[in-house]
C-alpha cells in the first residue's frame, strides 16, 4: 500500500527525518513510537503531502507521492491531526461534510453517496447524537470521535492519526483505541498511528516503527516490540515488565530508578 524508501525531510537545513525505510501492507496497523521531537508527526505529514520530501521516495499503490494531485491523495489517505478540533468554528456535521471536498467540484451537488458516507461516519463513531452541536462545545473525547468521523467520511483506504489519545482520560483513551481497532479490523482500513502509549503499540500495533532523532531505530511486528534494551535505548529510561492480571499479556512500566 505505502512504500517509504530512504525518506529524508529537512526544514531550514535541519534534518527532521533521515533515510527512513518501511512498508505498510494493505490492512496493516502501524504504530509509530519515539520520544518527543523524534520526527513522528513529520513522518505522517510527509505521507500526507503536507511537508515536502527532501530525499528518498514515498510510493502509494506503486505510484510516487509527487505524481498524485492533492485531491487524488485525499481519496487515498485521511488525517486526524494532533491539534484539538475544539477551536474550530463549525457545526459538527458541517465540519464532517467538508471532508467530501476531494469528491466534488465547485458546482457539484451533495449526492446520495456523500450522504451515505456522512451517515456511516456518524454511526460508526457514535457521534450522530451531536451532529448539530458546535465543535467548540464538545468534550475532548467527543471531539476526537468527531475528528475521526471526519477522516472516515473521506472514505480512504488509509487513515493516518497523530496521537489520537494524548489528551484524553483513560476511559476515552480505551474508547478511541477500540474505535481505531474496529476501523482496522472490521472496515479493513490501513491505519498509521503515532502514539506515546508503548503498551498500546505492543498490543494493538501489527507493526511498530520506533523513531529516534529522525532515524529509524527499530521496525518489526508489534508483539516483538516490548523489550527492555530497546525501550531503554529509545526513551533513555528503565522499564520493568509485568503480566497483565487478566489477559496475561506483558505490559511495560517505566521504572524510575
Amino acid at each position, binding site marked *: 500500500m505505502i512504500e517509504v524508501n530512504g525518506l529524508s525531510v529537512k526544514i531550514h537545513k535541519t534534518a527532521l527525518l533521515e533515510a527512513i525505510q518501511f512498508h505498510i501492507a494493505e490492512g496493516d496497523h502501524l504504530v509509530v513510537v519515539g520520544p518527543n521531537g523524534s520526527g513522528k508527526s513529520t513522518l505522517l505529514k510527509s505521507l*500526507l503531502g503536507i511537508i515536502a520530501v527532501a530525499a528518498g521516495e514515498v510510493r502509494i499503490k506503486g505510484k510516487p507521492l509527487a505524481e498524485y494531485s*492533492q485531491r487524488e491523495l485525499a481519496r487515498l489517505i485521511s488525517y486526524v*491531526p494532533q*491539534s484539538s478540533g475544539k*477551536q*474550530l468554528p*463549525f457545526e459538527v456535521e458541517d465540519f464532517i461534510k467538508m471532508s467530501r471536498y476531494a469528491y466534488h467540484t465547485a458546482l457539484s451537488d451533495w449526492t446520495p453517496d456523500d450522504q451515505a458516507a456522512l451517515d456511516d461516519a456518524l454511526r460508526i463513531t457514535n457521534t450522530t447524537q451531536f451532529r448539530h452541536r458546535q465543535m*467548540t462545545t464538545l468534550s475532548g473525547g467527543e471531539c476526537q470521535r468527531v475528528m475521526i468521523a471526519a477522516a472516515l467520511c473521506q472514505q480512504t483506504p488509509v487513515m493516518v492519526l497523530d496521537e489520537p489519545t494524548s489528551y484524553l482520560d483513560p476511559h476515552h483513551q480505551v474508547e478511541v483505541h477500540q474505535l481505531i481497532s474496529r476501523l482496522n479490523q472490521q472496515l479493513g482500513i490501513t491505519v498509521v498511528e503515532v502514539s506515546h502509549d508503548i503498551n498500546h503499540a505492543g498490543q494493538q500495533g501489527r507493526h511498530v516503527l520506533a523513531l529516534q532523532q529522525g532515524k529509524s531505530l527499530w521496525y518489526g511486528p508489534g508483539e516483538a516490540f516490548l523489550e527492555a534494551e530497546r525501550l531503554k535505548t529509545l526513551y533513555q529510561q528503565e522499564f520493568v515488565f509485568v503480566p497483565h492480571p487478566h489477559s496475561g499479556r506483558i505490559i511495560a512500566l517505566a521504572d524510575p530508578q
Partner: protein
Amino acid sequence: MKKPLYLLVFLSVVSLALLGLAPFVGLTEITNNVVREQILFDIRLPRALFAFVAGSGLALCGMVFQAMFHNPLATPFTLGVASGASFGAAVTVFLGLSFSLLGFDAVTVGSFLGALLAISFVYGISQFRYGFSGETLLLTGVATSFFFSSLILFTQYLSNINDSFRIMRWLMGSLSVTGYQQLMQLLPIVTVSSAIIIWLSRELNLLMAGDDIAISRGVAVKRVRYLLFLTTSLCVGGIVALCGPIGFVGMMVPHICRLIIGTDHRWLIPATLMFGGGFLILCDTVARIVIAPAELPVGVITTLLGGPFFLWLLVRSRKPAT
C-alpha cells in the same frame, strides 16, 4: 434549516435600502427640480453605487484574509497590504506615470503591484520561521505598514505642494466621485475578484480549519493561497487607487456577518458583499452630513469606528474562540 437564507435576505434588504435611501439624504432643501434631479443622478447615485462596490470589495478581501490567516484581526489594512497599495499609487502619482495596461490606468497598476509586494513580504516573513503565531503575523503587518507609510511620507516630501496635498487628501480615503467613470473602472475589478472568491468558497471553509486539515482534505493550499493573494491584491489595489485606503471596513463587516450568519463561506461571501456595500454607504452618508455643508473623508469615519472595534476584538480574542 434554511436559517442563513433568511438572514442573508435580511442583510441584503437592509443594505439595498441604504443604497436606495442614501442619495436622498440632505436633498430636501433643494427645491429646484432640475437641479435636484441633476444632483441625484449625476452625483449622489453614482457616489452611492461607487461606495457600495468599494465597500463590498474591501469587506470581501478582509473576509479572505481572516479565513486565510485564521485571525479576525488579519485584514489587508492591518497586515500592511493597503499601505503597500497606497505607496504604489503614490509613486505613480509622484513619477507622473501615465500608461494603460489591460485597460487599467497607471495608478491602479502601481497600487496593485504595491499590494502584491506587501503581501509577499508579510507572507514571506510568516513562512521564514516554523510555527508562526497570530501575534507575530500582526506585528509583521504593523511593521510593514509603518515601513510603507514612511516611504509614502518620503514620496510626499519630494513632491511639490500640489501633489503632496493630493496624496494626503487621498490617503484619508474619500468617495467623492462625479459621474459614473470611476464606478465603471471599479466594477469589473470587484466583480472578477468576487467571482474568483465565490468559486473558492469551499477552499476558504477548509482553510479556516487550518492548513494541515485543508491539505489532507485535498486542497492544493499553496496554489489556492497564491490565487487569493493575487485576487485580493487586485481588488485592494483597485479600490485604493480610486478612493484611497479606507480602513477597517474589511475587519468589521466580515466579523459582524460571521456573528449573524455563521462561518460557512457559501453564505458568508454574499452576506459580506451585501453588508460591506451597505455599511460603507452608511459611513459615507454620515461623513457627508456630520459637518455639513463641508464633508469629512469617509476613511475618518470608518477608522473612528474601526479603532475601538479592533480593541474589542483584541480583548475578546484572549478568551477561548467562539
